[in-house]
């Protein structure tokens, strides 16, 4: 079926289109070139007075896996307070901060998002993460495999294994777990905590393996470059939330020796030690480092005031933060000699100096990083806030007056320690399109996503302009997924299943022989039962697989 979307203003940064009135043509689920005159158009959608962007892509959101389910289980009061009944079309569920899977899919779709990436898939927990994402409707998904704290890798590194062996190991693991990227969380720190090491800076050796986070980052970054994984190493740097940690963040960039990195939720890693409270913003130092290193990208992990729950594989720092839990409870897990997890509920308070400054640091980063292709919009859902706050965050970026009004409502000591009030920048629609879809698509190597050119998947959002940008982005007029209208005027019209995006990598099969022995002696399952096939994904887990290969 050929559909024409007529008369909208197009914001498509990948193709350099900035608000130009242009028709879009969709043939089934793909965007196509304008057909020859006389070709029959089956359906016309009037976009007069509307503007159009491709479907939103969240590059870092915790939507699936064991740690997310622990959070759901723990946030019982929150789930009870927000229950949603099923109707003829929509399944039921609960929760706003860490919603159940069906609700997650519906709420993302209502905001115009069509793709989401789970950033922390522990190898042995990959099946669960994919099953949860398969039960998240209306979204295409993918995941980054957590490596760099796994005993097998640390042993290889400690023993000075050949580069090729490390490369093959990583490629095999990404392939076997159906992932599209690799993430390292507190490099070496999760493992070090298992040896009762309570802190680990970038150049500090792991108590047992004697390797440093810097070496881990460099080795992983080199390996990803060699195996031609498009998305650079996704790094949750050392010293999460620790005052003065901006130095660790910059040291991590230096450790990678010019290789590309993506720094995750960098707001939580941009703190200095100035002032009476020994806690200050170092956003300008981080922004400068990003400017000086064009091979670096970041997502912000902005915080919003209110209740949330923090979820991380970084057991070392989550455990250290457990006394700040609100409500007072926390769950931790050491997982399969691969990683760990810590779940700590938290309430960000606008009257708190530290929390208010965290809020300001996020804005400073967005506003100080000049090149929008290097910064992506996230709240590190749900760590900084729920993804449902994105429209509010976009308004803060686009509307200086609104932003300054918000500044007047928070802890004033924090305001005095921040330069947000002096920052005049207002994001344009073109820049918003970059940080919410075009940038993530390019970073992940998704050639048919994040844009509206011919050949792109027909995922797009039609918005109506309004003075209040929060209203605009919270209420798309129409959301189109795979060529089908799934949301109209805030209501879900039809539900379609998403697909799972994975990397297609090559490796020397001989790596499996050594791994077989390791799994038998040290693991709790055989290698033959570890790998997830495309067939299992499609027929048992419930997601059709889309493979990506890069040269």
């Amino acid at each position, binding site marked *: 079926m050929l559909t024409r979307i007529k008369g909208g203003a197009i914001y498509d940064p990948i193709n350099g289109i900035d608000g130009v009135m242009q028709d879009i043509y969709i043939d089934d689920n793909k965007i196509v070139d304008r057909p020859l005159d006389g070709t029959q158009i089956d359906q016309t959608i009037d976009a007069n007075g509307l503007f159009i962007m491709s479907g939103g892509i969240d590059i870092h959101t915790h939507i*699936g896996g*064991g740690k*997310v*389910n*622990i959070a*759901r*289980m*723990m*946030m*019982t009061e929150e789930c*009870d307070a927000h*229950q949603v*009944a*099923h*109707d003829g079309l929509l*399944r*039921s*569920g*609960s929760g706003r901060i*860490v*919603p*159940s*899977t*069906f*609700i997650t899919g519906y709420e993302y779709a209502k905001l115009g998002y069509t793709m989401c990436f789970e950033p922390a898939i522990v190898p*042995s*927990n990959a*099946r*669960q993460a994919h*099953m*949860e994402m398969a*039960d998240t409707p209306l979204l295409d998904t993918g995941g980054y495999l957590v490596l760099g704290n796994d005993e097998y890798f640390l*042993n290889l590194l400690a023993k000075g294994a050949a580069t090729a062996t490390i490369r093959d190991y990583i490629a095999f693991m990404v392939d076997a777990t159906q992932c599209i990227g690799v993430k390292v969380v507190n490099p070496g720190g999760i493992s070090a*905590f*298992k*040896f*009762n090491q309570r802190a680990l800076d970038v150049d500090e050796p792991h108590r*047992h393996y004697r390797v440093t986070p810097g070496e881990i980052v460099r080795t992983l970054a080199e390996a990803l470059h060699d195996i031609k994984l498009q998305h650079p190493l996704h790094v949750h740097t050392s010293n999460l939330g620790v005052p003065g940690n901006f130095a660790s963040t910059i040291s991590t960039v230096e450790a990678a020796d010019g290789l590309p990195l993506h720094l995750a939720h960098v707001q939580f890693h941009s703190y200095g030690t100035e002032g009476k409270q020994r806690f200050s913003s170092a956003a300008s130092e981080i922004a400068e480092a990003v400017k000086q290193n064009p091979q670096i990208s970041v997502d912000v992990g902005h915080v919003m005031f209110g209740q949330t729950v923090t979820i991380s594989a970084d057991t070392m720092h989550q455990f250290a933060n457990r006394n700040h839990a609100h409500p007072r*409870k*926390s*769950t*931790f*897990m*050491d*997982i*399969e*000699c*691969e990683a760990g997890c810590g*779940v700590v509920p938290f309430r960000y308070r606008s009257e708190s100096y530290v929390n208010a400054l965290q809020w300001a640091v996020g804005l400073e980063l967005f506003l100080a990083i000049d090149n929008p292709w290097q910064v992506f919009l996230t709240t590190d859902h749900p760590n900084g806030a729920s993804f449902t706050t994105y429209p509010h965050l976009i308004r803060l970026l686009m509307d200086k007056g609104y932003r300054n009004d918000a500044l007047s409502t928070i802890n004033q000591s924090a305001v005095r320690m921040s330069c947000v009030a002096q920052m005049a920048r207002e994001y344009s629609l073109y820049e918003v399109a970059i940080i919410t879809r075009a940038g993530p698509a390019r970073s992940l190597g998704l050639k048919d996503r994040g844009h509206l050119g011919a050949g792109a998947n027909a995922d797009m959002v039609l918005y109506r302009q309004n003075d209040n940008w929060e209203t605009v982005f919270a209420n798309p007029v129409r959301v189109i997924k795979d060529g089908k209208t799934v949301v109209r005027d805030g209501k879900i019209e039809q539900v379609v299943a998403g697909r799972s995006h994975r990397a297609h990598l090559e490796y020397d099969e001989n790596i499996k022989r050594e791994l077989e022995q390791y799994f*038998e*002696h*040290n*693991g*709790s*399952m*055989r290698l*033959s*039962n570890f790998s997830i096939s495309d067939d*299992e994904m499609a027929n*048992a887990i419930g997601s059709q697989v889309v493979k990506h290969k890069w040269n």
Partner: protein
Amino acid sequence: MSATASKIRNEAICPFCALLCDDITVKPDSADLSVELNGCGIAQSRYSSIVQPTCNKCYVYGNTVDCTDAIQSAAEMISKSKAMVITGMYTDVAGSRAALKLAENKSAVIMQSDGEGNRSQTLRVQRSGGYFTTLSEIRNRADLIVMFGRGPVSECPRILDMLRPRCPSTDISARKVLFVAIGAGDDSASEGSTSFECKPEQYGMLADAIRLRVQNTRQNSKLGFISDEQIDRLTGMITRANYPVLVWSESDFKYSLGDLAIDSINQLIETLNINRRCAGLVVSGSASGPSVNQVATWQFGKPLPLSFRTGEPVYFPEYHSFESLEKRQDVDLVLWVGGLEDQSQIPRSKADVIVISHSKPTKSRLFIPVGIPGVHHDGHLFRTDQAVAMYVRRIVPSSLPSAAEVLTSVLGELESSRC
């Protein structure tokens, strides 16, 4: 099903307890299955008792019918029901997904038959959290394993094999591992282990006494059932260890205030982690328990039991126990979903009963046989540590449908007839 057409299956995953051992060898004999290698008592017994093709018949009112008719009859019964309860839930992830969808569509209450068993630990996590570990971590890192009660070994007979290091020559596992059995009676954890006699009702007090010593707040307990010297010795073993792991099963805590004892063990772990490392492992018998709770939690934000009577997923365990529903006359149809259970322990009820399971119970109005995940069909099951889901593959060809297939067909029938 033709068992003779099957081959010996190495590295099969045993689905009959929550350890999901994946190193067993299963041999199909002429009519039966037998475990050739690494089978524990439960595996030997369960594989050898699997009923072969003769069971592949549906029954309605005692009469044999074909599967299509049975599904239609089930849909008719369900469509007339105003207060269905789905229970048993001895099934895999796919069966859980289908049963939850049916419960949601028909405003049913859905629960595990042994749901009581996991409730204390669930409550603990909901209230306070905890610190847990997994099988590989224990195998590679633990240097002291403290096992409370007989439950872990009786429910998962190979648990000690799974927790012991297999290759002591690798650097991370080059260590001496001590076992301490608390209250295991004659079934002490293993040869050479240290054991302390105490009753399940005393586990909490013992954990509290150790915690107070760790905190240096009290050195004199006078518990009566164990001497202060023994508590000191046990405390010393735990505090000297680099990675002590405390293992328990909820089945040993089924007494009044058992949840407080579980709380005490968790508090001890929490206290130990302030300055050193320690973690817990909760052992559950059936893999279906962790599996169905994981699915319910990701799909609806809450574990079982769940009531969809109002359209929303309501979690109120005390109100939605089978007994209280019966008492309120809020049950007019029971749907038992099984496959992995040892025996169908269908609750007593005046209501009609539909059984979807592998073995035919003595009483049911309608019976539809299904295969066992990991024997007759593929499926996903969660292991006792809840961190790992395994893909259990069928080991014999079978014409038996899975529980998920039957439930999906019933749902399809309900939707097509707009029941």
